[in-house]
C-alpha cells in the first residue's frame, strides 16, 4: 500500500525527468571498447529499443546498467541518483529488473520457485532490516514461520499465479515442473515472469523473443505492449525489427560500442549509417536478401 502511494507520487513528480540516464558510459576489454561514450535518457513509462549488429555492445550496456559489470568511465543515474558501480543486488532492491540474452533460469527450481525468487527483494516479514543480526533473525523466522511470514509467502504465491496467468496456458500447467524441463521459449517466459515479480520500475529485456517462432513472437510482442500500456518503463534489446518498430517510442542504434543513431523508428530505419552498419558487416548479403523476401 505504502509502496503504491510512493510510486504514484514519484511518477507525478518526475513525469518529465528521466528515470534512467546514462552519461558518457564506457567499458573497455583490453583493446576493445565494447561500450563507447554512450548517453541515453529514458523517461518514466517510455519504451526504448536498442538495436545493432551482434557484438555492438548492447548486452555489455545492460550489464553496466544492472551492476553485473563496472564501467571504466561515465555515469548511470536512476531517478537522478547516481548508481554507477552499484551491486546487482542493490539495484534489484531499487526496482531494476532484467532478463538475460542466453536465458538464465534456475534449472532445478520449479516455475513457481523461479518466479518467487523474482519477488525476493519484496520480502518484508521474513527479512527484518535489523542491522547485524538481521540474517540470524531471517534464519529463525524461516524455521519458526510465524503467521505473518506464512501469510506473506502465501500472498506472494498468489501473486505469482497471477503473473503466470498473463502467459495464458503456457506456464500455469507447468507451475511445479523444474525449469530445466521447459522448452526454450518457456524459459524466456519464466525469465520475464520472474522480472515482473520484482515489481520493477525499470525493466531491461535482452532479446525476449530469441529462438521463438512467429506465433510465439507475436504473443510476446502483445505482452510487452501490455506492460508498456501499464506504464512500465522498458529498455529493450531486440533483433526483430518489426517488433521494435511497433513497440518503441524511440530506437537507439549501436555499432562497435558507439551510438550511431537515435530517434523514431522510421527515421532510424532510413538512416544511412544504420543501413551501412547492418549491411556493411552485421548481415551478410544473402541474409539481407532473405529478409527482403520475407518482408
Amino acid at each position, binding site marked *: 500500500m505504502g509502496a503504491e502511494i510512493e510510486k504514484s507520487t514519484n511518477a507525478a513528480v518526475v513525469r518529465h525527468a528521466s528515470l534512467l540516464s546514462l552519461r558518457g558510459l564506457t567499458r*573497455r*576489454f*583490453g583493446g576493445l571498447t565494447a561500450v563507447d561514450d554512450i548517453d541515453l535518457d529514458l523517461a518514466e513509462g517510455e519504451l526504448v529499443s536498442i538495436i545493432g549488429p551482434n557484438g555492438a555492445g548492447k548486452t555489455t550496456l545492460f*550489464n553496466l546498467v*544492472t*551492476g*553485473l*559489470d563496472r564501467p571504466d568511465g561515465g555515469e548511470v543515474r536512476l531517478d537522478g541518483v547516481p548508481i554507477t558501480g552499484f*551491486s*546487482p*543486488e542493490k539495484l*534489484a*532492491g531499487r526496482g531494476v*529488473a*532484467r532478463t*538475460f540474452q*542466453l*536465458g*538464465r*533460469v*534456475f*534449472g*532445478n*527450481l520449479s516455475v513457481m*520457485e*523461479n518466479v*518467487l*525468487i*523474482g519477488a*525476493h*527483494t519484496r*520480502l518484508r516479514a*521474513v527479512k527484518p532490516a535489523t542491522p547485524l543480526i538481521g*540474517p*540470524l533473525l*531471517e*534464519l529463525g523466522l*524461516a*524455521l519458526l*514461520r510465524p503467521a505473518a511470514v506464512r501469510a506473506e*509467502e502465501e500472498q506472494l504465491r498468489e501473486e505469482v499465479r497471477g503473473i503466470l496467468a498473463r502467459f495464458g496456458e503456457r506456464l500455469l500447467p507447468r507451475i511445479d515442473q*523444474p525449469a*530445466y524441463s521447459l522448452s526454450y521459449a518457456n524459459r524466456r517466459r519464466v525469465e520475464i515472469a*520472474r522480472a515482473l515479480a*520484482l515489481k520493477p520500475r525499470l525493466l531491461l529485456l535482452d532479446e525476449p523473443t530469441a529462438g521463438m517462432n512467429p506465433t510465439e513472437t507475436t504473443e510476446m510482442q502483445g505482452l510487452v505492449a501490455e506492460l508498456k500500456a501499464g506504464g512500465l518503463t522498458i529498455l529493450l534489446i531486440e533483433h526483430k525489427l518489426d517488433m521494435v518498430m511497433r513497440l518503441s517510442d524511440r530506437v537507439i542504434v549501436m555499432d562497435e560500442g558507439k551510438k550511431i543513431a537515435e530517434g523514431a523508428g522510421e527515421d532510424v530505419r532510413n538512416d544511412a549509417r544504420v543501413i551501412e552498419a547492418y549491411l556493411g558487416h552485421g548481415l551478410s548479403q544473402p541474409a539481407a536478401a532473405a529478409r527482403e523476401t520475407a518482408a
Partner: protein
Amino acid sequence: MSSWLDYTINGLILGNVYALVAVGLALIFGVSRLINFAQGSIYLVGAYVGWVAVVALRTPLFVTIVLVAAIAALVGLIIERFGLRPLQNSVRIAPLLATIGISFVLDQIVMLTFSPNPRALPSQLPDIRFQIGTGTIGPLDILIACIGITSALLLFVFLRYSKLGWAVRATAQDRDAAMQMGVDVNRVNQAVFGIAAALGGLSGMLVGMYYNQIDTAMSLHATLKGVVAEVVGGAGNVPGAVVGSLLLGLVESYGVAVFGTSYRNLFAFLLLIVVLVFRPNGLFASAKQAPPEPLTGTFIAPSRPVHIPRWALLVAFAAFALLPFLPVSSYVLQTLINAWLFAMLALSLTLVAGTIGLVSLGHAALLAIGAYTSALLSLDFSVPVSMSIICGGLMSAALGTLLISPSFRLRGHYVSIATLAIGEIISLVILNWETVTHGPIGVSGIPPLSLFGFELVGVASIYWFSFAVMVLLALLQVRLLGSHIGRSFRAIRDDDVAARAYGLSLNRYKALAFIFGGFAAGVSGGIAAHLYSYINHETFNTQQSILALTIVILGGLGNVAGAIAGSVALVGLPEVFRIAAEYRILIYGIVLLLLVRFRPQGLLGTI
C-alpha cells in the same frame, strides 16, 4: 645454525620441486579448466616407482629418472582416457569429483601395495656439500635444479615450436575455436596429462630423495602445495606457476627458519587464502578481465528428486527407533551410532555442497572445532555435557563461517581448494596451539555423554540419543529447505549471477548455509568427542571429509533423506560385510567414481 643463504637455497630447491607439480596443474587447467586433484597421487606413484627402481632394481640414476617419468606419464594417460574423457560432456562438478575419487583410489592402491609405513629413498648421489659463500649446496640440489630447468626448457620448446604444442596453446586460449579449426582436443588432453604426470612423478621421486623418506601421506600435501603454487601464479598460467612455486618454496623455507618446522604447511595455506581473497586470478593476472562465462545449471546435474512417500519415512523411522528392543548385537548398534554421527556431517555437507553449491573438501574440520570446544568446555570449565555439545555446534557455526567467509566470492573448484586449505589450517592450529588444545598429545579423559545430569550408560541409550539428535537436525533442515531460504540457496547454486540480479546477497546466504551446516557438524563432532573420550588433531581428517562427500553424492546433492540413507549405506555396509578398514577408502573412491560416471545426481536425486 644454518645461514640465510642456506634457507634461500633450500627455498628455491623446494620451489623447483613444487614447480614440477604446479606446471602440470597449470597445463591441465589451461586446456580443460579443471584442477586435477589426482596430481598428488601421481607424485606419490612417482616416489614409489623411484623406490622400487632404486632399492629393489638398483637401477642407475638416469634409468631411474626415465622409468619414473615413463610410468607416471602412463598413469596420467590412463586417468585421462578412462577417468576423465567419458565425462567430457557431463556437468562441471563431475570431473572435479572424478579426480578426487581417482586420487583416493590411487593412494589406496599404493598404500595397500607398499604399506603405510615410511620408507627410505636414497638418492644414489655422493653425500658431499660444496661451500658457496655462507651456505652450502649438495649434488642432489644441483640435480633438482637441473631437472627443473631442463623440464622448463623442454616444455618451452614443445609449446613454442611443435605442432602439438601449438594445439595445446590454442586449446587453452579458446577450446571451441581450436576444435573448429580441426585441433584434436583429445590428443591435446592426452599430451597435457602425459606431460603433467611425468613432471609430477619426477617431483615425487626428487622430494623422496631430498628428505630420504617417502610415505603415503605425501599425496594430499603435494596436491595442496601444487595447487597453492598454481593459484598464486594464476590458474592456467605456466610461467606463473613456476614463479608461484619458487615464491611458495621461499615463503616456507623462511617461515620454517623463523617459526619452526611444525608451522611449515601453515604458511603455504595462508599464502593461498590471501591470494584467493585478494587476487583470485593470481599474482600475474591483468587487473581487468571479461566477466566470467555463465555457469547456468552446468555445475550441478539437473534432476528430479525421487519422491519417498511419507509412510515409508515413518516406517523407516519407527524401525530404527525400535531397533534396540530387538535382539540385535551391540556391534550393530555401535555401527549405527557411527552412521548417525556421519549422517549429521553429511546433512551439513549436503546443505553446503548440494543446496548452495560450495563443494567443501575440508568439512571434517567443522567436526574438530565442535569436538574440541565441547571437550575442553566440559573438561576445563565443567560445563554439563549436553550444554557443551550445543556450544560446540555454535562454535563450529561461528568459527567455520568466519574462516570460510573470505572465500564466498570464489566459485566452483576454487571453493573446494579454499575449504581444503582451511581444513588443513584448522588441523595445524590445533596441533600448534598447545596451551589450549594440548597440542599433539590430544585431549583425553573427556567426560561421557550425559543428558540432564544422567550419564548415558549402555549402548542403547547412546544409540537413541544420537539418533534423536540426527533426526531433529534433519527435520530442521527439511524445514529450512521448504522456506524462502532454501529456495534462495538453490537459486544461488543454479546461477549466482541471475540470483544477484534479483537481489540475493551471496555473502548473506552462503554465511547462513555455513552457520546452519556448521552447527550440525559441530554437534556431531561434540557427540563424537564424548563418545570416544579421547581426541587429537588427527581424529577428524580428510578421509572423513571425503567419505562425507561420497555419502552426499550417493544420496543426491541437497537431499536430506539421501544423506541419511547414504550414511547408513557407506558406514554400515562395510561393517556388515566385514570389509577390512584399509580397503574401505578404496571402495569409497570407487563408489564415488562410479556414481560420477553413471548417476551424477545420486540415488535419490538432487533437490
